[in-house]
């Protein structure tokens, strides 16, 4: 009861019409970090609690995808994989791609699925996509272990570029958050955006050298490839884990980082606006 008296020293909440700045959102998220953790946990729990296979889904999905890709593109279409076993070649790329696609897909509907919550309690709305990122990162880490196991199994040695990977994970996460926020903002108003997203990410995957090697891409298409931030991420993973992969120009990497930054800031702005008004849309 001793702390009761000093009401003056306590935080002051200011309630105002929607402003344009997103910085306060980010600060608020830090104050609500416990909430981010708890929402993440409840996500992970809810996702696997009532399922027959439970947590095995985390690894089952990427593994199955890898098997399908190996059979289809490695064995049937015989796509070159830089002399590495196609299974590892594909899995090393699928790993960051799934992280990106997972973040986009799960943040995209966060304003729609959490509507009941948004109508009843205040919290920085950015907590929702952030928590989804964290739960995707958990999946990612588990699959990282699988990849390590595969490297041992296929007798592969990671390349010296391995230590660069955290930077690329950051790039991938930031791009995913930016895209996810953009879509979440649009989906709050137009639900059909969610369909566009699932279709769009699939197209994007085929535009990124996930199932094929970047070498296969003709020179005329190279710029398109290089200005796709995900190409850099995917190739960096192959370089890091397999010591094999296309060296991409440094200036396109800088360009892609800038693109990511622009997408991220735009996404945060759109999300900021949409999260404040989504409750008002019936």
């Amino acid at each position: 009861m001793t702390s009761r008296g000093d009401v003056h020293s306590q935080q002051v909440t200011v309630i105002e019409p929607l402003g344009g700045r997103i910085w306060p959102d980010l600060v608020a998220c830090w104050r609500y970090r416990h909430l981010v953790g708890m929402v993440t946990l409840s996500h992970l729990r809810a996702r696997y609690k009532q399922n027959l296979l439970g947590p095995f889904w985390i690894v089952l999905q990427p593994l199955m995808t890898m098997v399908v890709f190996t059979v289809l593109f490695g064995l049937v279409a015989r796509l070159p994989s830089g002399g590495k076993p196609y299974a590892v070649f594909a899995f090393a790329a699928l790993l960051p791609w799934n992280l990106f696609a997972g973040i986009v897909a799960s943040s995209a509907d966060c304003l729609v699925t959490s509507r009941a919550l948004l109508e009843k309690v205040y919290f920085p709305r950015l907590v929702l996509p952030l928590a989804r990122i964290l739960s995707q990162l958990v999946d990612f880490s588990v699959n990282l272990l699988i990849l390590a196991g595969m490297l041992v199994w296929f007798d592969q040695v990671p390349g010296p570029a391995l230590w660069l990977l955290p930077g690329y994970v950051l790039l991938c996460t930031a791009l995913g958050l930016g895209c996810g926020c953009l879509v979440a903002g649009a989906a709050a108003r137009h639900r059909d955006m969610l369909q566009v997203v699932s279709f769009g990410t699939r197209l994007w995957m085929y535009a990124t050298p996930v199932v094929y090697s970047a070498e296969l891409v003709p020179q005329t298409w190279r710029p398109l490839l290089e200005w796709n931030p995900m190409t850099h991420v995917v190739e960096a993973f192959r370089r890091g884990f397999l010591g094999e992969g296309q060296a991409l120009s440094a200036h396109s990497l800088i360009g892609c980082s800038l693109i990511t930054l622009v997408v991220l800031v735009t996404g945060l702005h759109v999300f900021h606006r949409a999260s404040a008004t989504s409750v008002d849309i019936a």
Partner: protein
Amino acid sequence: MSAPSIACEGLGKQYLIRPEGSPDSPAGSRSGFFRRPSPHPLWAVRGVSFAVQPGENVAILGRNGSGKSTLLKMLARVCVPTEGRAEIRGRVGALLEVGTGFQPDLTGRENVYLSAAFLGMPPRLVRARFDAILAFSEIEEFIDVPVKRYSSGMRVRLGFAVAAELDVDVLLLDEVLAVGDAAFRQKCHLRLRQMLTQGRTVVSVSHDTSRALDIASRALWLDHGKLVEDGPFDEVLQSYIDRTGAEGAIEALPASADGSLRILAVSTLDLTGSPAEEFAPLSPITIEVRYFAALPVPRPYLRVIVSSPFGPLQSASNFMDGARPEVLQGEGAFRCTFHDPMLLPGRTYTVRLGMVREDGVTPFFPRTDVARFVVKGEPSDVGFGADTARLHTPSEPCMLSEYSWSLPDGTSYRANPRDPVSRAGTDIPR
């Protein structure tokens, strides 16, 4: 006084209502890819300014759609105002609906921690308070059960317990306590009082004025989104009841679903048998009901109920007295006189009519408000001469009775509404 815990300056919220039932959107947002009919703006709340001091308990009064809940939602930061500004000092807890913010798949325990996180509170602070929360909610045996299996009463218990025990400085309540049982409501009210004495602030919305009455010291009356009156609870409630009583005209007289029995007119008659809407204190009130029965109605049950905004007070019922009419046929009328209506003056009363078929089960129509009347006069007319009597009239129950006090200092006092003249002012303790 110290800095207000809530300060509102011209707060307003505009909605754009689109025709054709398409989604209504907030002001200032762009329309989609396709052109839609132009929306028309609707201010749910506009120009509301007030300040609440720590330790105050404010009730927001108003009819449905007057903007009460919108105002509360803005304070809870669930929706963003279109104009104006408000400042709240301290931690804000909001119970806007039953089970606010509970995740149905998580257990009660997990939800307590989650609710705390929604208040920006780390788990370690909750751990220290957990037992107190559990004790207050009285749902120990269900705490590890997912909240989706909870009854709405249990959710309110847990929700209120979290808000009460977790050191919120400002508590916003929207109609939540109505769900709990009487014992728990009582407990909540006690707890609220305790919180108020600790300098915390409570703002509540209640459609049931008698509920707000128990705890609120001040009221804000909203009408069509505007703040009409702001003052001591009793005063605001009085003018609220006066106005809404006058405005709330009897909408339509009832008729049976098949149309065979219709109520044509209901009037209140005074002692002389002439229609009146205002009555002197304690003077007889006659209710006359004119009906038309297209088919003969054998032995119906008639029931006339006089009620105040707080609930029913007196009834005349054939279920109790057995004086059923043989038959109602064609056009006709029946009268019911309350010869000795012991009603508090200065209040508006409502007459409800119920008619049930011969079987005693099937009503002709739902019980309906058919008339209103006012008992004019001052509290002193029925023997209440204290100088606080007038101010407190709105918050006292409306039925009068003869009663007496025996006080520890040996004095006694007898209140007799029927004989106010000889009593008023004589025996009233100074």
